C-alpha cells in the first residue's frame, strides 16, 4: 500500500481504517475530521505519506534533564 500512496499522494495525510485506505487529505486535521465523521470514537489511523518516517526529537526529555537537580 505504501508504494501506491507514495506514487499518488505523497505529502498528504492518509486516513486508514484497519486495512482499508479511506482517502488522502491536505492536512491531518481534515483527515481526522473525516475519520471522526465516519468512525466516531473508534480507532483509525492518520499518517503523513512520506518516504521517511517522522522522528520526535527531544533530548532533554530523552535524557531526563527536564527537572534534573544537579
Amino acid at each position, binding site marked *: 500500500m505504501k508504494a501506491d500512496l507514495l506514487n499518488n499522494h505523497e505529502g498528504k495525510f492518509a486516513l486508514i481504517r484497519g486495512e482499508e485506505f479511506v482517502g488522502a487529505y491536505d*492536512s*491531518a*486535521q481534515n483527515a*481526522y*475530521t473525516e*475519520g*471522526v*465523521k465516519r468512525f*466516531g*470514537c*473508534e*480507532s*483509525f*489511523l*492518520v*499518517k503523513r505519506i512520506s518516504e521517511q*518516517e*517522522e*522522528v*520526535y*526529537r*527531544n*533530548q*532533554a*526529555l*530523552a*535524557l*531526563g534533564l*527536564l*527537572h534534573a537537580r544537579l
Partner: protein
Amino acid sequence: MAYFMPVFNFFHWSEKHGRTLNDTGALVSVEIGIPSALKQHLSEKGLPIPAAVSGFALVDTGASATAVDDSVFTSLGIPHFDEIATGTPHGQGNSKVYPANITFPGMNVTDMPMERVIGCQLRWKTHEDQEIIMLMGRDLLQYFLFVYNGPSSDVTLFY
C-alpha cells in the same frame, strides 16, 4: 525601514510568581481540550463533553513538537490516531500521536487546534505544586514571540 509585529495578547511571568526562572523554567498556564471534530461528534450523539485538563506548559525551544502527558488524553477520552518514533534513554521507542485543542487562559488564546501532539510520560510538579502537563515545542512557538530574560528572571510570551 522598521518592522512592527502586531501584538494582541501577552503573558508576563516574573520571579514574584515563585522560584527563579533558572529553577523552574518558563511556565505558562494551559488547558488541553478535545478537538473540535470530536466535540461536535459527542454533541451530535448527546454524549457528555469532557472538561479541558488544566496545568502548566514548560516552554521548550529544544523540542521540535509539542508533547502532552499521556494521562491527559486518557482522561479526555481522545484516542490516538498515529504513532511516531521517539528517542529514549534506552534506545528508539514509539509514542502515540493525538489531536487536541490548546487554550492559554493568560493570553486569551482559546481552542487553538493542534493537529499532532506527542503523548509521553512527562507529568511532574514544581516546588510550588504547579503541575507540568505539556512541553511547548517549536510547532507552537512559531506563532509566538518569546522573550527570556535570564538576569532579571522573567519571561514574556506574546501572541
